[in-house]
């Protein structure tokens, strides 16, 4: 069935490692996306069963704050994509700066999000202790619960992404990543970042634009 081939080195060749890492990341991202898939299913289900109530509840959300946040996140994604490109070109400084810019934009997103939460809290629309005064109807409370879980889970992912970017930028500064040979160390976190962006792109209409 087999015979010994010319002996390759014990360490797998770089190309193989590159492919394996990217492919593994792709599968991981698919898996992460399905994590949110469960939440999308819940939203679609209630949209079908209680369409009217869901639309009414959705209208209470701050549509334009969400839009602003989408812009922020898209911009950060652009920065992340540029970081990956400049990493391939071997520009350590630029990569580092772009990563930090993307992370900063992510932080801006979180700040805006927090502001939005506090607005909703003030309106009595947030189903947390002391904050849900206006949520008389069970279904609007339910919708806001789903909103809170979905955006909260997204915010957790974004925080992880910010952490990854800051850490990666630190490693560039620390010279433990050298470009362009270690470009995968940049590409992998940016892929994760784009996924978090894509999740938001679906969450935004699913939560804010139910009309």
């Amino acid at each position, binding site marked *: 069935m087999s015979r010994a081939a010319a002996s390759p080195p014990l360490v797998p060749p770089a190309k193989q490692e590159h492919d394996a890492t990217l492919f593994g990341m792709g599968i991981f991202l698919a898996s992460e996306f399905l994590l949110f898939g469960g939440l999308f299913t819940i939203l679609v289900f209630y949209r079908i069963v209680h369409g009217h109530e869901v639309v009414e509840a959705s209208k209470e959300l701050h549509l334009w704050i969400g839009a602003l946040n989408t812009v922020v996140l898209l911009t950060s994604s*652009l920065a992340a994509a540029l970081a990956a490109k400049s990493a391939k070109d071997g520009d350590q400084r630029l990569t580092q700066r772009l990563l930090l810019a993307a992370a900063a934009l992510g932080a801006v997103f979180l700040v805006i999000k927090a502001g939005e939460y506090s607005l909703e809290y003030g309106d009595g629309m947030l189903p947390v202790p002391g904050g849900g005064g206006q949520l008389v109807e069970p279904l609007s409370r339910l919708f806001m619960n789903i909103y809170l879980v979905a955006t909260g889970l997204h915010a957790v992912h974004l925080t992880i992404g910010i952490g990854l970017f800051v850490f990666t930028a630190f490693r560039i500064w620390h010279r433990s990543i050298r470009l362009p040979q270690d470009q995968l160390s940049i590409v992998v976190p940016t892929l994760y970042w784009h996924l978090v962006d894509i999740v938001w792109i679906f969450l935004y209409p699913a939560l804010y634009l139910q009309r």
Partner: protein
Amino acid sequence: MPGLRALLPVYVALLALLATTLGASYLPLGGWSPVVSTAVALAKAALIAGFFMELRLEGAALRLAVFAGLFMCAILLVMSSVDPLTR
């Protein structure tokens, strides 16, 4: 900046799509509203995946993995809608 020239149009297209979906949400589309917003979201996701993540350049296996994730999500959504739609 390397790549900015290539990526800027994509970014502008993404913002345009965002404006589209926002505008569409004010139109009286009725039952078509979710269809439009989902289609726009899919287009945006495709732009990000294709240009920002460079999936169009990477291997077929990676594309397959990402496609499988989206496809399975679609299956979950469609098949679990069968029950509430016909209840």
